[in-house]
């Protein structure tokens, strides 16, 4: 974290508009708007999928048609018109690249602007990248290195073709098609995403990293990610997102499934920085994501997220602690500013004996935003000696924002130990004055206070992500105090 200096921050803070608000002009192969069974078939055909996958999608589509869009979350938004979205958009005429030279230069320039040039990424810290731009994977690096260890890291479209047995066995097992409205929709029309398999006993030597990016006007992004850690393996997976600024709302409904088999461990870290809309609340991404992991015996799954973007966020990365002694963790920072709305949290479902879960949630609200934590801790009757510790802290800036906490606790076994702590605080004028008196200007003072507040979660992120996350916190709160 040491490389990021105050001067860098100062530069960042000068930019008042959304940082990554630019648009790359890439030739796209885009479907007409609208959704019916024929579109679902066409997506599957376009991706040259086997028949079982096509059927799977169609089944999901049927389920989705019978469902209704949920409205229990503490958010208000204009419901998307699903017939006004184009369900497929791929950078045209280039299914695969062997080297970066073949990649559209304009696309590379986009990455450059984001500060994540692939060239640099290749050299840096052993980070392999599976880059997803508008639904089709255009560059995959380090695959060979990974293959030596038997690790499979590729787009899910490729995996469907190359490792159908693995995909077929696990897809939809943690998040069934029937799970919820958006999961069903995703199952029917998912465009692309990442697939990762770590074989038995293998410790993945590098952080696996995917950058998602919504690029085409009016195309929804339906990512599908499947991570399988076989027995006694370990993987740390990073997911980071940015999107160009745009006036109309964009829908993002991803599904992420994690499977940690016996003694395996998965760390899944997310930095989400999609366009939050402008200061008047116009535009911005709808982020309706379903993320869930399954832990077998002695397995562990940690979700860490830094959510600063999107106009509306609806997201509950969860753990099903099925196996005895399994462990689930959820560390979250959610920042809302201006008119942003976030309803986020987790579900820890304790099924096995001696299962443990930890929840640490830090919500920061500014402007006229609404920030809700919603979490469920469920202990089933068979889960002897289950333990949970939850801590939900809210930090408010100004008088017009809201922080809400909705903890649900269901305990059906007397041996369970559940602890829940919650605090709400405000950045006080006294704190700001104290910093000011030491020569620290107000914006910097807020950044300092917010970083201090979020420290427990920031510490859980891999180093390179922590730096980015810290910057994001500061950028997303700029102008929030007059």
């Amino acid at each position: 974290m040491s490389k990021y200096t105050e001067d860098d921050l100062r530069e960042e803070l000068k930019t008042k508009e959304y940082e990554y608000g630019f648009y790359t002009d890439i030739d796209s192969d885009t479907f007409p708007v609208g959704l019916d069974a024929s579109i679902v078939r066409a997506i599957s055909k376009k991706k040259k999928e086997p028949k079982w996958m096509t059927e799977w999608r169609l089944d999901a589509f049927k389920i989705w048609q019978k469902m209704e869009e949920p409205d229990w979350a503490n958010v208000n938004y204009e419901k998307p018109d699903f017939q006004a979205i184009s369900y497929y958009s791929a950078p045209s005429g280039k299914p695969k690249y062997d080297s970066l030279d073949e990649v559209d230069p304009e696309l590379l320039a986009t990455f450059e602007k984001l500060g994540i040039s692939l060239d640099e990424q290749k050299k840096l810290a052993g980070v392999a990248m599976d880059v997803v731009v508008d639904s089709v994977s255009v560059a995959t690096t380090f695959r060979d290195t990974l293959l030596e260890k038997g690790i499979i890291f590729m787009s899910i479209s490729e995996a469907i073709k190359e490792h159908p047995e693995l995909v077929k066995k696990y897809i939809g097992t943690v998040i069934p098609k029937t799970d919820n409205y958006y999961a069903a929709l995703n199952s029917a029309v998912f465009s692309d995403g990442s697939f990762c398999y770590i074989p038995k006993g293998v410790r993945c030597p590098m952080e696996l990293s995917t950058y998602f990016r919504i690029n085409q006007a009016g195309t929804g992004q339906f990512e599908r990610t499947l991570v399988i850690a076989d027995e006694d393996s370990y993987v740390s997976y990073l997911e980071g997102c940015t999107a160009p600024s745009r006036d109309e709302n964009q829908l993002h409904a991803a599904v992420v499934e994690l499977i940690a088999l016996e003694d395996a461990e998965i760390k899944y870290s997310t930095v989400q920085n999609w366009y939050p809309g402008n200061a008047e609340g116009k535009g911005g991404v709808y982020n309706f994501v379903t993320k869930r992991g399954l832990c077998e015996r002695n397995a562990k799954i940690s979700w860490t997220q830094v959510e600063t973007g999107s106009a509306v966020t609806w997201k509950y990365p969860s753990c099903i602690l099925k196996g005895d002694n399994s462990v689930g963790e959820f560390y979250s920072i959610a920042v809302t500013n201006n008119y942003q709305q976030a309803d986020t949290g987790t579900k820890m479902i304790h099924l096995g004996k001696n299962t443990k879960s930890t929840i640490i949630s830090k919500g920061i609200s500014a402007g006229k935003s609404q920030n809700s934590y919603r979490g469920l801790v469920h202990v089933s009757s068979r889960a002897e000696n289950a333990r949970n510790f939850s801590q939900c802290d809210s930090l408010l800036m100004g008088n017009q924002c809201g922080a809400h906490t909705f903890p649900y606790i269901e305990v059906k076994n007397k041996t369970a130990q559940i602890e829940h702590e919650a605090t709400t605080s405000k950045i006080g004028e006294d704190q700001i004055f104290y910093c000011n008196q030491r020569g620290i200007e107000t914006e910097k003072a807020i950044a300092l206070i917010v970083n201090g507040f979020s420290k427990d979660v920031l510490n859980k992120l891999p180093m390179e992500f922590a730096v980015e996350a810290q910057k994001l916190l500061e950028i997303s709160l700029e102008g929030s105090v007059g």
Partner: protein
Amino acid sequence: MLRINNLHARIGKKSILNGIDLEINPGEVHAIMGPNGSGKSTLASVIAGKEEYEVRQGQIVFESEDIAELSADERAHKGIFLSFQYPVEIPGVTVTNFIKTALNQMQKAKGEKDMPANEMLKRIREKSEMLEIDRKFLSRSLNEGFSGGEKKRNEIFQMAMLEPKLAILDETDSGLDIDALRIVANGVNKLKSKDNATLVITHYQRLLDYIIPDFVHVLYDGKIVKSGGKELAFKLEEEGYDWIKKEVNQNV
């Protein structure tokens, strides 16, 4: 260095300072004493630039510049330091991180680059040793769970790090036991030079046994009603403030 002319200030509708005149020159130590509610802490806050207070009349001139319109951080950049009576907590921000941020912001205001890490560490080591501060203390969250003594020692540590021209010590002795008081006073004395000045605000004479003032002023009802040498402090200690009140009321 600091010249205050006919300063009137209020908070909300309540007038607290009612015409303060005060002049402090480099190398001097001034003490302001006075009963509770006389406006001592307000005076400190107003000099430091706390926005809640409205300056209605008068000037605050620091190094020949009227600073009334400057924000608190700008005043800090000019070399005004306030040791708070009640330092605030900033959870998750370590003492080291905080002082590093402050020092580099000061550097930036002067148009200078960040202080190199090794220089910073050296300075931190030096100053913490001077104030007998344990190394572990530096990695604790700022003022969180600190004892009264630790808070005050930390204030003086920051002062030592920032090397201000004018240091205002607001009730620095409150909450200190005798050992801590000696350490803190020692620190303040070591930092004194012919170029900087100190304004000690205190209710009791006790601190002035350690930090010897050149001038003592008595604040009552928002005005300096009496000034003198250090002997004035002894008289106040012995006789209390009643005689001052009487004097003032007779004059009215």
